[in-house]
């Protein structure tokens, strides 16, 4: 008898458990969000070609590399002002992918004094080259990157003396 009572209790417990599984369903899904900070680009220094003496008879050029090297061809560099690459401070989501668009050919004066063959390097990455070119780059894992920008200045023969400047734009956007 005692055994029968025990069996009955076990049956009742089993019935209650089965009933609970039918009326309560637990399931899981994943909610996630990627928080992006604004992508900001700030120019720190402009591109500077320094002092240049044009050739009287032949057009020449000056190339400033992303590493700041200044290389003249058929022109002579002065020593009072040395050229340097432009630099930009970039902030964005850590290690995120973004596109970098280089400037188009930029004219400083009529007659051919212009800059083209723009080059850029993000931190220690590969050099990106091309006027108006867009390429994929990556924000540093710290969320802060430095962009170095160079280019080639074309100097017509016997270019008139003067200080020449022209604006240009660099654009970045998340991919």
């Amino acid at each position, binding site marked *: 008898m005692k055994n029968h009572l025990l069996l009955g209790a076990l049956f009742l417990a089993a019935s209650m458990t089965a009933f609970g599984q039918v009326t309560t369903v637990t399931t899981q899904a994943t909610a996630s969000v990627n928080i992006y900070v604004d992508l900001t680009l700030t120019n720190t220094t*402009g591109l500077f070609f320094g002092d240049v003496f044009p050739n009287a008879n032949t057009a020449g050029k000056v190339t400033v590399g992303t590493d700041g090297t200044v290389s003249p061809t058929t022109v002579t560099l*002065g020593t009072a002002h040395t050229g340097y690459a432009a630099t930009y401070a970039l902030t964005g989501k850590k290690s995120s992918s973004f596109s970098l668009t280089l400037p188009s050919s930029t004219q400083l004066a009529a007659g051919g004094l212009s800059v083209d063959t723009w080059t850029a390097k993000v931190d220690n990455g590969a050099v990106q080259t091309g006027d108006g070119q867009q390429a994929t780059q990556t924000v540093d894992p710290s969320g802060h990157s430095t962009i170095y920008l160079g280019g080639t200045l074309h100097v017509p023969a016997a270019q008139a*003396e003067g200080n020449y400047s022209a604006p240009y734009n*660099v654009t970045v956007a998340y991919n």
Partner: protein
Amino acid sequence: MKRSLGLLGGALLLLPAQGNAQSFDTASAEVTVFILAPVVEGTVDDLEGELVAGEVSGEVVVDPAPGQAAAGRGPAAPRPLRPASYHVAGRRSAAFALVLPEAGECTLTAPGASIPVKGFKVSVAGGPATGAPAGLTFNAKGMNDFKVGATLLVGNGLPGNRYVGHFTMTMAYN
């Protein structure tokens, strides 16, 4: 119920993707170059003239300052030594440096004989002669003029001949 939760998760995942496409920035900057007019150095007249040969050696000073004749050893020749004259051009109002030859850098020679030259001095734009020119500038039109003289060490008994030598001066923007 499970299907509804799945849709909610998908909706949350879409939000950052929309944020990506709108997040960009453009930075404007300037590219600059200083184009300089090259320094053009044109010699108008060479340092030249005549000396009368003599028995006594000595120095002949060719003073570049205006109104100064060659002075020193011996009687005056029909065509006295005169300083070299230069007309130079460069960037308007720009400062420049002029480096004169050192003693020993120039010797006038003829077959079998020579005349050393030392003590180069310059007179800029009609100013006093100096061996250490400073504060030189191109004028508002990018021009300047100067004359260069020197001291000739003339030995005794030099044979009559034409003695020729060359000297180099260097100009550069400061």
